[in-house]
């Protein structure tokens, strides 16, 4: 099985809602942990959720799938989702799949 590489999650409480900063690799092994963190952050039904992907160094299809599902959920549940654009190697996954234009990317975390 895949060797699990670390994914660090750091949650901040901005005025507009929670912000989770991702550092490391998001893959089939670490995606469940991010999902848990997201579920916890959304438990209080905030108006906005920000995922900061600037320090995300790798993303596989499980990670991509998680963002796609989350975007659908934002639409259904009526909260604003913002993904802070990652650096080029990681961004390429979003480019190759044209997810970049389908997911709510921003260049900087929105001001609190």
């Amino acid at each position, binding site marked *: *099985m*895949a*060797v699990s*590489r670390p994914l660090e999650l750091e949650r901040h409480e901005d005025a507009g809602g929670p912000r989770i900063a991702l550092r490391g*690799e998001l*893959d089939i092994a670490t995606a469940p942990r991010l999902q848990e963190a997201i579920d916890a952050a959304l438990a209080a039904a905030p108006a906005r959720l920000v995922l900061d992907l600037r320090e995300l160094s*790798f993303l*596989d*299809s*499980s990670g*991509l*799938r998680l963002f*796609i*599902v989350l975007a*659908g959920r934002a639409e259904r549940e009526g909260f604003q989702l913002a993904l802070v654009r990652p650096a080029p*190697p990681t961004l390429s996954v979003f*480019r*190759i*799949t*044209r*997810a970049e*234009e*389908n997911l709510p990317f921003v260049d900087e975390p929105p001001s609190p």
Partner: protein
Amino acid sequence: MDLAYARKILNVAHTAFISMDEQGRITYWNIRAEETFGLSREQAVGRTLAETIIPERDRESHREGLRRFLQTGEGRVIDTRLELTAIRADGSEFPVELIVSALREEDGWTFHGFVADISERVASERERQRLLDELERALSGSEQRLRTIVDSLAEAITIRGRDNRLIYANRAALERLDMRSVEELAAADPQALMGPYTTVDEDGREIGMEDLPSVRLLRGESPEPLLMRTTDRRDGDERWVLLKAAAVRDAAGEIEAAVTIIEDVTDAKRMQLRSEFLAEAGATLASSLDYQQTLRNVAGLAVPQLADWCAVDLFDADGTRETVAVAHVDPASVELASRLRAYQPGQVHPDSGLGTMLRTGEPALFTEISDALLQRIAVDEEHLGLLRAARMRSAIVVPMTVRGRTIGALTLVSTQAGRSFDESDLDFARQIAERAALAVESARLYSERSEIARTLQNSLLPEALPELPDWEVAALYRPAGHESEVGGDFYDFWDAGGEWLMMIGDVTGKGVRAATVTSLVRHTAWTASEFDTRPAHLLERVNSALRRRPGLSVCTALCLRVSGGRATVASGGHPLLWRLGRDGVQEVGMHGTLLGAFSRVEWPEESFELEPGETLVAITDGVTDTVGGEDERFGTTRLQELLSDVRLESPAAIRERVIAALEQFQVGAQADDTALVVMRRCAEPALSDELRALAGPGVGA
């Protein structure tokens, strides 16, 4: 025999021999008598016996006894073994054993006696008595109460004297040693007491008398408590005992005896061994899906801890028996045990262990195996010979059952040197068999599942690569992880009316769900290609099909259409196609939208003409995501360099180079499925290898 000759013999006898007349005077005195009493024959003969060897205080009663015998012809001392005190010439006293005979001759009575010095024996008996007296004195006052307490202790307690003889044992110890009284015990040879038992330590090393803590203590050592296993060879009773010894010292501080407390820890020890065994067997059973090897390991574990030999048989659905494991405590006997198992396997006697188990479906316990039983179950003389040679004492056969179905049997056997099995052993054997049965069943299920997965996987890949006109093709599919899972990567080639279509893709997820999606994607693309072969059209149809599914079914795919040297490509969220030209390599085509995920979609196509000898390479992200040392990914740059190096080679060679590069780079297990398709435009209509060979050198390439 004349008298002179008889005297010669008597003279050299090893016991003192003395003769006396009616007056009580010594008439004969042999060499041994000279040594025993320190008086020569010349000195002794003619003196009265009373003044020579009898202490003064006893002389009068000796004379009185002699007078009475001469008057009545009867005497208490005649022909009786007597213990008396004698004196030597130097006046010292010592104990003797005496037998006297009286002979009536012409000139009156003569008396003849054998006299043995029993100083040593008496000393050791006195010593014992002294110790007992001392023990009793120590227990004085409440002696009776203490004795009752010591006797009522479950622990056996013995006291061993300096001469290594046991001089005391409480009731529990007497029972253990099979002795009726302390006296009987004291008279027994200490070595002989161990005789009927096989005694070994925890590691199976034999324990001798010199290893016993009490004996070591008396030897001046400081022994640790000793845990040992004794097996009574007479009835196979096996016990674990813990021996602890303590010294009894005299007033001067010298060790004069060793007290041993013998604790029967059989139940605790067996429980410990069994739980250790179960833990170990559990780990062994879970460690591998090669159940035959696993069962062999378990059988190996059972010996010698639980039994002297262990066999595991498995039954097929049609009842065929297959012995998969035989372990024997004695390696030399493994062959004998195997031969026994294999002996006419079709003819299991209904009264044999296996036969009984099979007939009743219940475990079979043979506490003691009699020769009569062997004779009954033997198939023929040779079989009987083998059975006897196995020297079985006791046996257990338990069924291995899964969901009410008996899939095999576990057999435990102890030999003559071992112990008899009892009900608790039977229970334990059942527990082992239950676990073993489960392990076998999961291994079987796993291999069945793997077989299903393989079949399913194969159904998701083309049976064989097609013979494309003008193209040479090689492909690779390497699923990651367990073979029982279906991977998410796929590729396909098909002929759409003179044009060839190739699709390579990656369905998110694994297993049957991924297989269902893969199947949907392929069938949708096939059907769509009957109306319109444009790659963008095929991707669009696949996207729609996926979007119609409940939930989120996501897939990346790259679709390529070739017709002669002309190629058209479109990507649905899939890594782009590589074009390997004479001068270098580059990605061709444009990124299109991931399939099944989004409502805003676009699949731009790109068409181009390939020169003969140019190659196209399509991959899935398993290639670039391969993890190497320091968590580095293989990545696009490395792939590009690799493809550049191999760009002029054949598709098959390129495939092998990519595999080699990935295997060299990869650290740890393969994390993701990997698929690869390599297509080269031939310089001229492709010839098969056979044709090339037939055409000879210079033709073709």
